[in-house]
């Protein structure tokens, strides 16, 4: 049996980006869960501990890339799920722009929060 139930047109750009971001997220999400639930217990998280982690350049870059990639993967997934449900015309255009604006706002907020956590001030 070789049935496929994908929301995407195979080989499209959104299809490819969803797969590439998924491959990255699989690794980083597992790392994130391990770091903040098993290595460090979530109940013991403090700003000082968060800042110590976020001041390591590699961790900072990984977490920002994680947030931005997750944002794209999530929004792209929602858009394609709605297209798959049959949304079209004005509704499709409206959904697209609402998701783009939401993703941009979330992306900016992720960077702002990350810099505050790292103790970096950006004007």
């Amino acid at each position, binding site marked *: 049996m070789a049935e496929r139930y994908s929301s995407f047109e195979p080989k499209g750009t959104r299809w490819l980006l969803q797969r590439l971001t998924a491959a990255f997220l699989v690794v980083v999400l597992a790392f994130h869960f391990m770091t903040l639930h098993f290595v460090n217990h979530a*109940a013991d998280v403090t700003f000082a501990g968060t800042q110590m982690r976020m001041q390591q350049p590699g961790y900072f870059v990984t977490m920002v890339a994680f947030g931005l990639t997750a944002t794209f993967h999530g929004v792209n997934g929602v858009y394609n799920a709605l297209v798959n449900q049959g949304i079209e015309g004005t509704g499709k255009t409206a959904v697209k722009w609402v998701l783009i604006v939401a993703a941009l706002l979330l992306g900016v907020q992720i960077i702002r929060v990350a810099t505050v956590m790292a103790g970096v001030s950006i004007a």
Partner: protein
Amino acid sequence: MSQSYDRGLIEDFGRWTEFSAGMWAWIFHKFTGWVLIGYLFTHIAVLSTAMSGPEVYTSTLQGLEALLIVRFLEVGLLAVAVFHILNGVRLLFVDLGVGLESQDRSFYASLVLTGAIVIASIPTFLAGAI
């Protein structure tokens, strides 16, 4: 190799008893995806308390972790995330044309492995709350 397949109207949930394993995998992946994107916005909102000062961030996170319902929600989030990851890996293999004949079994394996990981993680997630 990609081949088209007329899956019929999956949106017609009235015929859910006819759904195959692949259909359920599709539905679960969509459901867990919606939960995860919703959680991402919530998670960043909570972490944004860092912008109000270190004390607000620490007290907010520790205050939430002190609530038993939050611990159970975290277990639910783990279940959702683990299934989305495992089924996502399964989908990547399917897209690469690997294991096409084992799609049903790999879906069941994703469910079983998700259950095992979540059950094994419950003590860690509930530690200190009960």
